[in-house]
């Protein structure tokens, strides 16, 4: 069959990155499984939880491509959440006593960076505040619970108080900078239609 070529010469997308991702996926999966098996054999402390969470976080942050809404605010918020998750796992399984002090600082830092990004480019970032907003709500709620909990040390109480305040300030700044756009954005993000 004779076919008249009416298409330009094209280069197919290289599959090298797909293959590399697949290999890394298997390395992570094997490493995680091996760490669980070894840890089960050696007994506590349960360090395998840190290995598994670390692998999952690395995968999520750097190897699983974001197909929708890859932006600076979202990236910093994801980093903050993942760091908080890994820290809480380390704190819970390996070395208790400091996670309550560090985690509010991490989420507060994520919110602070988001705030700077929003203020530096209002038009560009006005539709990207959603993840930061969710984090600020979680931060305020979590920090307040921790703040009013019995047996919380003074330094932990101080840090969680500052963190809750940062969350509140972020919400206030977002409302005052975006005005009605803030509420429109909320309506869109939570729509059920």
């Amino acid at each position, binding site marked *: 069959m004779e076919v*008249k070529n009416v298409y330009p010469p094209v280069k197919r*997308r290289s599959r090298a990155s797909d293959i590399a991702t697949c290999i890394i996926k298997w390395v992570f999966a094997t490493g995680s499984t091996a760490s669980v098996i070894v840890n089960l054999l050696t007994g506590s402390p349960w360090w395998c939880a840190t290995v598994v969470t670390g692998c999952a976080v690395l995968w999520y942050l750097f190897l699983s491509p*974001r*197909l929708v809404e890859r932006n600076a605010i979202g990236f910093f918020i994801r980093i903050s959440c993942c760091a908080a998750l890994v820290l809480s796992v380390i704190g819970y399984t390996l070395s208790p006593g400091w996670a309550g002090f560090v985690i509010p600082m991490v989420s507060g830092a994520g919110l602070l960076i988001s705030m700077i990004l929003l203020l530096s480019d209002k038009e560009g970032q006005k539709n990207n505040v959603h993840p930061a907003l969710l984090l600020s709500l979680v931060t305020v709620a979590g920090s307040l619970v921790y703040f009013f909990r019995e047996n919380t040390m003074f330094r932990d109480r101080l840090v969680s108080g500052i963190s809750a305040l940062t969350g509140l300030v972020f919400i206030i700044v977002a409302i005052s900078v975006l005005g009605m756009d803030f509420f429109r954005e909320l309506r869109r*993000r939570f729509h*059920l239609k």
Partner: protein
Amino acid sequence: MAKKKSEFEIYLLSLPGKEKEKLESFMASIDTYCILGKKELKAMKNDFQNALLWYASNGVDTDTAIRYLNPADFGGFFARKSLLWFPLDDAAKVYPLSMKSNFMAVFRLSCIFKEDVVPQLLQIALNFTVKRFPHFATTLKKGVFWHYLNASKHRYTIEEENSVPCSPIRLERTGSQTFRVLYWKNRVSVEFFHVLTDGTGGMRFLKSLAAEYLRLKELLEDDEEYEFLNSFPVKEESENAFECYLQKVPPAGFMDRLAVQMNGKLSNGPSRIIHFRMDTKSLLDAAHKHNATVTAFLLALMFMAGRSATDSMNGEHAVQVPVNMRKYHPSRTLSNFSMYFMVREELDSISDIDSLIEDIGRQIREKGTEENMDRMVASAARFVRMARYVPMVIKQPVAKQIYGFLGDKLFSNTLSNLGTVQLPEVYSKYIDSMQFVLGTGITNRAACALVSYNGVTVFSVTKYTADPTFEERMNSLLKAENISFTVEGSAVWK
């Protein structure tokens, strides 16, 4: 060091005083109609300068050029911020949930002109066209429960074609567009992410773009296409028609038996596109000779060709046939409003074309009824209602798994028939034909689409394997039916 003068500045200096003033005031007037960012505004002005230069080099006088490039035709689209957003229709909801970095439901509609495309004018035509389609001038966003389309007013760009048709569209950046306009020689193609529209809505856009381009290039008088382009977009055009025309009928299931697939190593995306460019009259004659519709006739040929392209001895070959629901419900929506049914044939019953046509005709009459299609709509609505309150964080991985497992394994091939494209008579002088290419194969080795314009019917096959059996058998079957046709397409993309 003095800044080097641009081609447009040199052209301005060469003009007599009055002409120069006219052009300068024209360029300044663009600011009034665009509140885009600095970079975008510069690019937009550059588009107008390139178009003016093209007109000048083709002997069009300044007054005429200014009249045709009137930025008032933006209709205020770029002059104000948009607060619009659009929830996805029921059919579109699954596409962003199931997409992957190397798989996205994209289809392509092309207009083949009789002369090579002038990119300078195509860009202006796109600038003028996009305002009439606010639903298309959007970017995909992720909500807590569903994705949605958020208005995104920026300069939409044309690109020279240099990648495999229907490649995934990059959506991740702020303001990313959900469709792309490509040109190559005498062809203008628009590739749409299915989340935006279906073939009918996409064709409406392409017709407007082609008509606007021809108006600018051939200096045509204003006509009904121009009137449409400058009319106000109406609410119904972006409605979720599935919801509006939901009937009280029992929902039908989407599940069916797995179909036999053609053989051949699957490629990563389309491996080849083949267009059978047929004379519509001879195709109709051949179909009528068998007392069949064009769809039933081509389906029969597809079953015969598909039978040759598989080594399986038993099982069913199935072809998915999308149905435009606007045929049953008078919706003006430009969003998705189509459903589908399956035509299935046992492999060992695929031998004689006449008995095949008879059975296919029966299946089309039985399965493609309004009631059956309404039941499919009810199923889609039921799925959407069920998944409504489930957060995306849970819904997305589940949808990906189901789609990954099932994908397109229920059918072996697709035949999407867009029918005959209607355009005012004047355009037939400049447009040769239209093409429709599907790009959604996962395990299917071929997907077929059909569109007619101006006495030319183009049957396009998107191949997902280098094995040429299917298209070669189609070629010999069409020849055997005495249909007058030529074959165009691409090389095999390795």
